[in-house]
């Protein structure tokens, strides 16, 4: 990375050359390695999305053949979920900020942290290998027996890629949990932790408890394909619905792996941009844990029409309703945090407000799907597609973008163009709604997911959706330019450009290799977000 040195001690200038990056044990450099890798995959997943939306402009399915279309939506899902969303906030912002917020030099296991990036890269390369080998056409959900018996595409290769990448996620989770327990600075009690730490801690629990299950599941699919063992294929004594239980036992909690860190980011941004403690700190903190725990008990709401028992369906429905409550609590607490705040109109606020709107819609439409009698009509339709995009793109990516902008000056030591960031947030918000809101309507009318062609009467809404996607793409492409530009030409960032509280803002931008200069022992004597007017506002 070409970079003008401005701070001799900065982690960016501590060493130079490719080897100094590829062999680094510095959590901040590993965060940067992840940032570059996941950005590449975000762009790749975005290209697949663009290809899907191009096809759906016309009802006939005349742009790509059906096999190619099936591979496009499969790869869009696989790339976006396993190689962008799951690692996104924890592996970049989390890696960078967790040790600093905890007042320590690095994560508990720096080498394991580097190993996790290598596992991610190896898994990603294997999956790219599956793309080169002709692609995969099972959908990211790999439902059996289609994936294990019927599909003639590179399912096994993709399964191995996902298997390997899973370990990167487990190792990151392990590192965060141990670091949070063992390496908090003196005085930094659990209830003084920034809520971003709570959120990543809860996420890590889900990562280490859930990810082994998806690893086992894809391995079973691999074994059924490669060796003909009958786990899921009824012709060989297997049960295809068993796969869905195993798959969703990870993949529903995985939704929380994607959104919980985003909620942590939003808590930080709301407090910072309003210069006010987060309203109901302990409720927000515990709601992360509640989501992590309850999130493991709702997988069957993906299976109301799968032939599972009616009574199982009811249990999953009611627990799904319960898991909505902590999300509602968080949303109301963020809103209340703004009350009597000192709200900055700088660009992170735009991303936060965008998140609040989209996440509210995403969360509430989850209630439609958790309601068993309504789910029967909506499952496998575009309503589901719209709902999870509101959570994962409207929620998680909006939070990721907000967090990336908020901490960009800290991570790179450079100030970006705030007006362009506002423009980007607005484009994303408008483009996103235009893309995905029509899909709720299409879903209620009955348009099934993963359809390459559709009845003529649904063209208008699909055209609207594709038009929105082009605005959305613009909104995401813009930051790639002004953020890169800021690396070279941006103004140098002070230690605390937003004038906010938090340990990360007490150290130079970019931070020195061991975070706190001269090996000073950090001592924390106040709660997070302590903006009492009597005290000095600017620290560092």
């Amino acid at each position, binding site marked *: 990375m070409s970079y003008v040195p401005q701070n001799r001690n900065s982690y960016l200038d501590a060493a130079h050359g490719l080897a100094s990056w590829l062999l680094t044990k510095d959590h901040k450099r590993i965060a940067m390695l992840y940032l570059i890798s996941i950005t590449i995959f975000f762009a790749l997943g975005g290209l697949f999305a663009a290809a899907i939306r191009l096809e759906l402009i016309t009802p006939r399915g005349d742009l790509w053949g*059906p096999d190619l279309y*099936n591979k496009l939506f499969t790869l869009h899902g696989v790339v976006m979920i396993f190689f962008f969303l799951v690692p996104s906030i924890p592996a970049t912002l989390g890696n960078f900020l967790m040790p600093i917020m905890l007042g320590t030099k690095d994560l508990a296991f720096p080498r394991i942290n580097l190993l996790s990036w290598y596992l991610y890269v190896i898994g990603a390369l294997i999956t790219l290998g599956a793309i080169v080998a002709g692609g995969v*056409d099972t959908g990211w959900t790999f*439902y059996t*027996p289609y994936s294990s018996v*019927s*599909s003639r595409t590179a399912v096994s290769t993709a399964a191995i890629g996902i298997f390997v990448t899973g370990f990167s996620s487990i190792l990151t989770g392990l590192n965060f949990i141990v670091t949070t327990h063992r390496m908090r600075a003196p005085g930094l009690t659990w209830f003084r932790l920034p809520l971003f730490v709570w959120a990543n801690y809860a996420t890590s629990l889900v990562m280490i408890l859930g990810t082994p299950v998806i690893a086992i599941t894809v391995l079973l699919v691999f074994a059924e394909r490669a060796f003909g063992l009958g786990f899921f294929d*009824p*012709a060989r*004594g*297997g049960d*295809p*619905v068993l796969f869905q239980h195993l798959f969703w036992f990870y993949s529903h909690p995985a939704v929380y792996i994607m959104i919980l860190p985003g909620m942590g980011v939003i808590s930080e941004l709301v407090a910072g941009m309003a*210069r*006010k*403690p987060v*309203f109901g700190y302990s*409720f927000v903190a515990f709601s992360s844990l509640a989501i992590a725990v309850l999130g493991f008990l709702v997988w069957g709401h993906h299976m109301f*029409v*799968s*032939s599972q028992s*009616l009574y199982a369906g*009811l249990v999953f*429905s009611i627990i799904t*309703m*319960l898991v909505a*409550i902590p999300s*509602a609590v968080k949303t109301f*607490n963020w809103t*209340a945090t*703004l*009350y*009597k*705040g*000192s*709200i*900055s*109109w700088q660009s992170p606020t735009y991303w936060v407000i965008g998140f609040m*709107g989209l996440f*509210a819609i995403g969360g509430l*439409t989850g*209630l*439609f799907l958790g*309601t068993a*009698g*309504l789910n*029967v*009509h909506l499952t*496998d*339709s575009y309503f589901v597609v719209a709902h999870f995009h509101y959570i994962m793109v409207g929620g998680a990516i909006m939070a990721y973008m907000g967090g990336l902008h908020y901490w960009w000056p800290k991570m790179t030591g450079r100030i970006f163009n705030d007006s362009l960031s506002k423009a980007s947030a607005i484009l994303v918000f408008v483009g996103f709604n235009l893309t995905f809101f029509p899909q709720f*309507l299409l879903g209620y*009318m*009955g348009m*099934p*997911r*993963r359809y390459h062609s*559709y009845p*003529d009467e649904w063209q208008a809404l699909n055209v609207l959706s594709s038009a929105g996607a082009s605005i959305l793409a613009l909104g995401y492409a813009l930051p790639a330019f002004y953020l890169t530009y800021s690396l070279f030409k941006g103004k140098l960032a002070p230690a605390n450009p937003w*004038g906010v509280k938090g340990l990360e803002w007490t150290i130079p931008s970019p931070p020195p290799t061991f975070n706190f200069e001269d090996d000073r022992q950090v001592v924390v004597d106040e709660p997070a977000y302590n903006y009492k007017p009597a005290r000095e*506002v600017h620290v560092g």
Partner: protein
Amino acid sequence: MQDFPLFPPSASSIAREVDLLYLFITSVSAFFVVLVAALVVIFAVKYRRRHPDEVGADIHGSLAAELVWTFVPLVLALVMFFWGADVYFRISRPPVDALEMYVVGKQWMWKVQHPDGTREINQMHVPAGRNIRLTLGSEDVIHDYAIPAFRVRTDVVPGKLTTLWFNATKPGTYHLFCAEYCGTMHSQMIGEVIVMEPHEYEAWLAGGTAGPAVPPEQAGEQLFAENACITCHTGQPNAIGPDLAGIYGSERRLADGRVVIADDNYLRESIMVPLAKVVEGYQPVMPPFQGLISEEQLMQLIAYVKSLTPSQAPAQ
């Protein structure tokens, strides 16, 4: 692009109830989205930062507020749950007097068989105003039989039978989709559900088919003989296999002490993999028919077993 609908046609007895539930949840959701959006915008404007060193008020929280916004959403969510559970039960439990039809899904078509044996592909003609129960099976991968105008669907899973019921209210032609991704031509695994007045349906049945149709239970009786089922299931007290007359829906005590209900899936399993559940008092000697008979033949055999009442033991 001549028409631009925003709501699907409503053509079954349950559709109105599903729509009502949908509108209720939509109203609750719209209220909260507007509430949060309005508060966020009002606060962001009203409390915008006036000078660079300003900080917000030192407010940490309020237990009363937390209780309100925990319990109000909880109550609303529980209302949705119970309402949804009620609708779910009524969608999922077919009434006993329903007309039985059989559907087999395979890559990439739907095969439908009517009670009188009439068959059709990727179309399903049904009479309005009758309860209709479909028994569905798959020959290969998981499919999903979805009729949006009726607001019902079910997965069609290989290795088991699923059911779907509806009462069509409005004559017309409606979309039929495969809603579970099933491979290359998934988006072509579509068709039409044609709802007709009962007399038109009868006329259609009478005039539609090429040859004389064989009702499923008759075809099943023939299979029962051809596959030599009758050799052991004679209906006599000392027979090698259990008497099948009247067993459908009854309780069966198994050799291992379990008691199961003889429903569609029990019958299916007992034909395909008989040793999975052996009835008390009988030897585990029946050969498996998995791979030997098709999903359609299986349904015909089940239809035959269902048709047997205690007075009509299999013909000797």
